[in-house]
């Protein structure tokens, strides 16, 4: 059974550009959460989506946005990239909004130059 998948694995962008990261949850899971992990730090919550609706938002600027599709996959968009956006972006899926267990994907490593 496939776990959480994310694409791309690695990405290099230039300051000011836009990026889209993608996540497919475990089959049957309806909730997707996004986290940003800067090197040497713990993951920080960005968004949670459940049944295509935003259910939580962390302390991130409006340059960050996300959406969830009818098949429960999700996209994270970041506009006007800054050097400080360089991080590992993790997607996690769970069955419901009130999660018991969250399963993390392999992550997308974003480097902004």
């Amino acid at each position, binding site marked *: 059974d496939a776990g959480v998948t994310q694409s791309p694995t690695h990405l290099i962008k230039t300051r000011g550009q836009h990026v889209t990261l993608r996540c497919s949850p475990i089959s049957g899971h309806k*909730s997707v*959460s996004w*986290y940003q992990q800067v090197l040497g*730090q*713990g*993951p*920080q*919550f960005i968004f*949670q989506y*459940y049944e295509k609706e935003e*259910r*939580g938002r*962390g302390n991130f600027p409006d340059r960050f946005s996300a959406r969830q599709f009818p098949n429960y996959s999700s996209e994270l968009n970041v506009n006007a990239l800054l050097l400080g956006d360089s991080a590992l972006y*993790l997607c*996690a899926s*769970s069955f*419901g*909004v*009130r*999660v*018991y*267990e*969250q*399963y*993390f*994907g*392999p*992550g997308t490593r974003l480097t902004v130059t």
Partner: protein
Amino acid sequence: ELKVEQNPLFLSMQEGKNYTIYCNYSTTSDRLYWYRQDPGKSLESLFVLLSNGAVKQEGRLMASLDTKARLSTLHITAAVHDLSATYFCAVVRDGGSQGNLIFGKGTKLSVKP
């Protein structure tokens, strides 16, 4: 604001020794998670602790939760090199979005022969 503090942040151990990692959190939470992360990899779930006094063990790792003290411990018994990794604890804010995990900064464990 819910804060999660881990200590120590760095831990160098000899094989065969025992040690404990501490995780304190600042407000009430109804569950606590422990994750393991290998360099460049995603998060692997180790334990989910749901109630006061909960204790879970897997191999050489044992986690416990004291909700009154807002403290969880991860005890390592007879460490082996394969346990070298970064360990994170995370909590869910009571009443908040259940996809919203608040992580500590992590404890980087290095087990030396």
